């Protein structure tokens, strides 16, 4: 039956392949959205790990996560070092890493922090940060690069870099009176860390020593660094701090205490919760797209059934000849159903190949935009489910023309 079917379909190649292509395109749309969503969600949730809380100025937890984890947007307020020091001595805290944000290097965000950042901050499933070359900075004039920064700007250990004030190269003024020496390049993590430049907080403070209200007042070249008092370079404020607790069970109590800290308006955000909050917004858009692509698939299936029904008139001769040679109406109906099966299967296989290509491309785009690399796979269980649903719906809808053929041919004169 299949050789007959395929020859018959080949004789109607143009409408058949157009319908197959439209079904395939609809599936590509649905699956790429699904895959990008899955990958992004995964990337989102894996972009930071090992951190129990992020402390920052009181604002929405979303905002705080966006700029501390994804380096997107800009902090509105800072928190004072005094507050940080107060929190640091709490008995329920295991470690605390302050960060200061705001500057950049050729479009890459600068994260000023302490050397213990590399020890405590993790990504993915609690994987530690590792260096492909060199190691963490020890001096205030040293810097560490994320893997993408080193790769794209062609830097290595020993390179000298200068920092721009503000996050955008063209607007910001260069801190051209001081350069940092790269001491380490990190291994790729698939998180925003890959696209960041890390400095010592003291070095960062030094850069801004000559600045008041965003303007340069005097140049560092005129200052003898050794003459500075030892605590002059201790930052007065930082942007936020990552915190690890001794016991995760104390997290809610901890965040309540932070919220109620009397001397400054600060809050503690639990990254997992904030990330899922963030995801619920991104995911909503995604749900809309998903609904849209299901509608497109339904339309494609209707188009397929329409095509089959429309072709029946032209195939009257073919069907009558089969009948005259002993084919049962069941055989003819089965041919119609198998035709939709063939269209569905070809569309699915095509969609898998295309989607794989699309996600491969989208993955690198996402990596560029958000610094997250969704993991890449051929086919997931969920997709097998989606395909089965589409195939089943296709067969189900082809029952309409199949029943038409069956009834028409059950008692029909030959000729």
């Amino acid at each position, binding site marked *: 039956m299949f050789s007959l079917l395929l020859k018959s379909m080949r004789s109607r190649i143009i409408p058949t392949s157009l319908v197959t292509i439209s079904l395939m395109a609809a599936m590509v749309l649905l699956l790429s959205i699904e895959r990008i969503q899955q990958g992004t969600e995964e990337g989102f949730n894996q972009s930071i790990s090992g951190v129990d809380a992020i402390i920052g100025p009181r604002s929405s937890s979303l905002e705080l996560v966006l700029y501390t984890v994804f380096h997107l947007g800009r902090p509105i307020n800072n928190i004072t070092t005094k507050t940080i020091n107060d929190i640091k001595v709490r008995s329920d805290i295991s470690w605390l890493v302050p960060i200061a944000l705001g500057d950049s290097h050729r479009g890459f965000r600068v994260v000023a922090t302490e050397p213990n950042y590399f020890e405590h901050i993790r990504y993915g499933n609690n994987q530690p940060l590792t260096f492909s070359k060199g190691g963490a900075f020890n001096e205030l004039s040293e810097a560490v690069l994320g893997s993408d920064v080193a790769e794209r700007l062609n830097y290595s250990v020993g390179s000298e870099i200068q920092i721009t004030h503000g996050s955008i190269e063209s607007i910001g003024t260069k801190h051209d009176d001081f350069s940092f020496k790269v001491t380490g390049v990190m291994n790729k993590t698939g998180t925003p860390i890959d696209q960041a430049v890390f400095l010592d907080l003291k070095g960062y403070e030094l850069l801004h020593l000559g600045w008041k209200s965003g303007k340069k007042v005097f140049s560092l070249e005129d200052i003898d660094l050794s003459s500075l008092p030892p605590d002059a370079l201790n930052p007065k404020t930082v942007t936020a701090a990552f915190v690890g607790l001794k016991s995760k069970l104390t997290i809610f109590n901890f965040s309540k205490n932070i919220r109620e800290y009397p001397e400054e308006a600060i809050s503690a955000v639990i990254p997992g919760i904030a990330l899922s909050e963030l995801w619920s917004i991104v995911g909503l858009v995604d749900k809309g797209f998903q609904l849209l692509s299901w509608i497109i698939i339904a339309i494609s299936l209707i188009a397929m059934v329409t095509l089959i029904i429309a072709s029946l008139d032209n195939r009257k001769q073919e069907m009558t*000849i089969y009948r*005259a*040679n002993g084919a049962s109406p069941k055989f003819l109906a089965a041919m119609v159903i198998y035709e939709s099966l063939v269209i569905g299967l070809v569309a699915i296989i095509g969609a898998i190949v295309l989607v794989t290509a699309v996600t491969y491309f989208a993955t690198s785009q996402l990596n560029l935009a958000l610094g997250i690399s969704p993991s890449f796979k051929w086919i997931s269980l969920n997709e097998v489910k989606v395909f089965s649903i589409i195939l089943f719906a296709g067969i189900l809808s082809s029952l309409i023309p199949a029943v038409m053929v069956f009834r028409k041919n059950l008692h029909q*004169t030959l*000729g």
Partner: protein
Amino acid sequence: MLQTLGLEYHYQHGKKIVFPEIEVERGQRLLISGFSGCGKTTLLSLIAGALKLQTGDIKFDDHDYATMSSLLLDKHRADHIGYIFQTLNLIPFLSVSENIALGIRFSQSRKSNVTNLNQEIVRLVDSLGLEKEALDTPVNRLSVGQQQRVAVARALLGKPDLILADEPTSALDSDTTKKFLNELMDTFDSTKQAIIMVSHDASIASYFDSVIDFNKHYV
């Protein structure tokens, strides 16, 4: 071999036909003549088992149509009957050989009558006066006469007991009709097979053993 008993057919639009009794034995060539619309195609479809019996019965050897399901009738048709249409006998996207092979496509017993399919096709085609090259020609490039011969080859393949032909010569000119009928009668196996042909053309009666004139029976 074949006998009809009191066949009547009511069309949905109200017309009713009472068919004459027909009896055919192996080796017999029966011509049913009559003008168009007198129910000839309906009769052939009833004999072929494609159309459900309404009144009366058909007996084919030890098969009794009235007691058979449509599925059994389909199988019966595949095994025992070769069918030739007036025109448009061939499926355009199949080759000539594939079109001929359709004759045994749906029947195990007819398949078992053919030991070497290609040889048998070549033999039939040759015996029906078709050039061998016709086998490699796309079916829509064959002349109507050639197409009808291919249809005959399909109907004869695997030696079914009964050949039903529905005005197979109506699209042919008189010379071609003569040639066509000569070749058909020469090729069919008169020891095992029978032919029922319907035609409005009474001039071909000489090729047949018996003739039933439908016009006389028309109600």
